[in-house]
């Protein structure tokens, strides 16, 4: 049946109308979505991308709080750029000649964010009740905590510990309001209820002198709510588990008014997605903590973008590339030195770019204990070959691989998730006739392999306590992380190091330990993974504290 012109026109009009309606609908949808997003753009608020939720909902101890702990809690002392202690909650201090007594004169007029006054009793309650939690590393050193006055507290140690100040500056030793330190059994109660119950329990500044031993440390205490003296207070309203968390400005902060009214963290598990979030303008800063690190490719791209600034800093610790000195032929230091000559560290440095610094010893360049006299070996393949030849480790069948003990010298390297360095080392070792296979393991398995010395070469995980406690790793009595080095000279140096009463002597023996380990040729090289923060240029200048355990976000409150 023929269709009339009117009907045809009607059909066309109908189609056009449907088309326009669809387009309009799409525009409306897109506009609504865009409006929702732009509403979030508050410039007084700093937004940071991190990789994981910073909190542990049953215990708000600074030990498990990661990023916000550095802004909520404050420590007795801070560290300056040269790692010297500077006042924070303690204004001045005196150290006894035997290095066992530390008398702290606390800052007056400071209050916790819940109104509880900060005083000597508060410090003592922290140390005694949380001795097995965030104070565990110092707790075992403390013989007594004596309240000498309302604002004077004395720490008496069982033995001298020259790095006490550095450890006191760690964000884990942040001072918590005593009103929120509660027995674990009460932790099921709502936080506000507990706060009411505990309010007033710590009133009054009474002179007391009590030993920690006379008040048995209760391992069952937890922190029910994050309350410190810091520039920002925990913002419970904006905490969505595994999605975001936030802190708000503490208007009564004793050092002045913090710059941002609020700091939000968005949880973005993927590194590339964090970089893209920064590029899209949804976040202002990322990469500054170990939870939110960026990868090399992201950093390269962000560096090219003029909108962003990149700040980098060295760490104190380093990942050690070690050779198992208990397995032949590497039980001979000369054979181990051949491996060191075969490695072109400049090529490894080029591969890792700005994300790492290659070091000769166990400590990074900025650590207060690093021995500056250590140096990396020159790349010299001929020398490496001649050492192996002299030791009669030669290629007898002409297949390019040397033989040792009647078998081809084929060894393996235990490597982490991304074996880029290992791939390069395989090429270096092939040059000197050693076959290297890569044994890729996830970090959980690596710990066991390392602890049981079940490897030929391994990239040793970076355990931060080694930064200042070299005996754990290098003494044969060092415990689970010991490299089982049986060397009397090294043990003697470690003994003197542990008995040092002042920092100078401590540093002197730390250097001696590093030199001896260097002579033993056990560390092929070390990878000091650098901290890299990427942020919007107009934010100002992000400054890393001297070490990450101090709390990377500590300086955000007055970012210039």
């Amino acid at each position: 049946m023929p269709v009339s012109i009117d009907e045809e026109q009607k059909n066309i009009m109908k189609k056009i109308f449907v088309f326009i309606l669809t387009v309009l609908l799409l525009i409306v949808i897109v506009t609504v979505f865009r409006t929702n997003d732009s509403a979030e753009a508050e410039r007084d608020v700093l937004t940071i991308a991190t990789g994981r939720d910073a909190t542990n909902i049953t215990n708000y101890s600074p030990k498990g709080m990661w990023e916000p702990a550095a802004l909520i809690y404050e420590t007795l002392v801070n560290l300056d750029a040269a790692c010297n202690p500077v006042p924070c909650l303690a204004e001045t201090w005196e150290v006894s000649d035997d290095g066992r007594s530390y008398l702290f004169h606390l800052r007056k007029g400071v209050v916790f964010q819940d109104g509880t006054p900060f005083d000597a009793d508060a410090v003592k309650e922290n140390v005694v009740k949380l001795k097995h939690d965030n104070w565990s590393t110092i707790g075992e050193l403390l013989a007594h905590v004596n309240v000498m006055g309302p604002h004077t507290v004395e720490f008496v140690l069982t033995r001298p510990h020259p790095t006490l100040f550095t450890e006191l500056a760690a964000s884990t030793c942040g001072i918590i309001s005593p009103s929120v330190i509660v027995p674990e059994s009460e932790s099921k109660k709502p936080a506000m209820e507990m706060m009411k119950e505990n309010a007033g329990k710590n009133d009054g500044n009474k002179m007391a002198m009590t030993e920690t031993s006379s008040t048995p440390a209760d391992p069952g205490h937890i922190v029910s709510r994050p309350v410190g003296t810091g520039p920002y207070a925990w913002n419970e309203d904006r905490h969505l588990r595994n999605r975001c968390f936030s802190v708000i400005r503490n208007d009564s902060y004793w050092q002045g008014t913090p710059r941002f009214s609020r700091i939000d963290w968005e949880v973005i598990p993927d590194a590339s997605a964090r970089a893209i979030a920064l590029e899209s303008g949804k976040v202002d800063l990322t990469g500054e903590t170990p939870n939110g690190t960026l990868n090399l490719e992201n950093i390269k791209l962000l560096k090219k973008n003029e909108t962003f600034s990149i700040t980098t800093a060295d760490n104190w610790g380093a990942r050690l590339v070690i050779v198992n000195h208990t397995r032949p032929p590497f039980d001979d230091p000369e054979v181990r030195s051949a491996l060191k000559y075969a490695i072109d560290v400049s090529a490894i440095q080029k591969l890792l770019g700005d994300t790492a610094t290659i070091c000769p010893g166990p400590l990074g360049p900025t650590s207060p204990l690093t021995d500056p006299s250590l140096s990396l070996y020159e790349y010299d393949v001929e020398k490496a070959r001649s050492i192996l030849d002299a030791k009669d480790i030669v290629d007898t069948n002409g297949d390019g691989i040397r033989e040792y003990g009647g078998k081809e010298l084929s060894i393996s390297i235990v490597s982490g998730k991304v074996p880029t360095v290992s791939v390069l080392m395989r090429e270096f070792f092939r040059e000197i006739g050693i076959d290297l296979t890569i044994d890729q393991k996830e970090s959980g398995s690596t710990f066991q392999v390392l602890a049981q010395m079940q490897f030929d070469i391994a990239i040793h995980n970076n355990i931060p306590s080694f930064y200042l406690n070299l005996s754990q790793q290098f003494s044969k009595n060092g415990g689970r992380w010991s490299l089982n080095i049986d060397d009397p000279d090294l043990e003697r140096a470690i003994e003197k190091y542990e008995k040092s009463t002042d920092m100078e002597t401590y540093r002197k023996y730390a250097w001696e330990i590093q030199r001896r380990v260097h002579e033993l040729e056990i560390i092929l090289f070390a990878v000091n993974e650098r901290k890299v923060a990427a942020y919007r240029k107009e934010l100002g200048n992000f400054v890393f504290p001297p070490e990450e355990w101090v709390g990377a976000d500590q300086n955000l409150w007055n970012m210039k």
Partner: protein
Amino acid sequence: MAGFLIRRLLNALLVLAGVVTLTFCLMRFTEGDPATIIALDKNGSVLISGEVIERLAEKNGLHDPIHIQYLNWWRRVLHGDLGNSLRSDAPVWDEITERFPYTLQLAVLSILITSLIAVPLGICAAVHRGRLVDRITQWIASVTVSVPDYYLAIVLIYALAVKWTLLPAYGCGTAAHFILPLLVLVTAKIGYTTRIVSATTVDLLSSQYVAYAELRGIPKCRIFYVHILKNAMIPILTHISLQFLMALEGSVIVESIFAWPGIGKCMTDSVLGRDFTMIQGLVLFMAVLIVGMNLVVDLFYMFINQRVQYDGGGAKP
């Protein structure tokens, strides 16, 4: 029917016990000291001593013999307690109930959209076999199967969130947040589903009973809807239900890149972090869900095809 249900429930209990026992054993025999891994994960880059590790192991019973740990876990589960996560200390059940709705939303929507696109597309390709529609469909299927999720996600974020700022790059909460994760998930599934639908329909189109129905003069429309589509639905439904079950386990890639707080990332992190209680809780939860879903799918078969009977060991067409 009642006998079938009782048999299936007993089977389900056996499957659940088997799955949980196997997971328990596999995790305990994996390399690595769980107390060390968990202590490092909890405390991060702060000073950590051997004492901290020992206390953590003692507190969580990690030094107990394996059979004691196993029995303790079952005792707790039978009292309705899945325990607390070793890493976050949060109750496992709370963590699951907090995360699962996010995974479920994505799973339901992605399967729904995939089915709405892939089923008609696959049928259309089968009906017009060898023609342009079929070739285009096959090409789309090949491309979507070949594009890696991770790459597609990054490209989509870069284009739609960074360059044109049309959509949010990450997170959840509004309808707009669903678009990019769904685009990635649907793209990943659409190719396989289209091919399954197309192949199934082609098989049925060339079957003898369809030829016989045509000879009998039954209208093509009736042959298609009554004979072909109804029979095609069983393999298609099986495929879609499997895809749905896989989607319920969460996508690590999508959840990591789009910061979607679902269950997939939680599972991976728990395995890498040796969070035994969390892994066992998640596995038990997923096993209950999958066994339950399988039962529902079996009942669906019966509903859509009356010839499916349940006798003895299971479904018989």
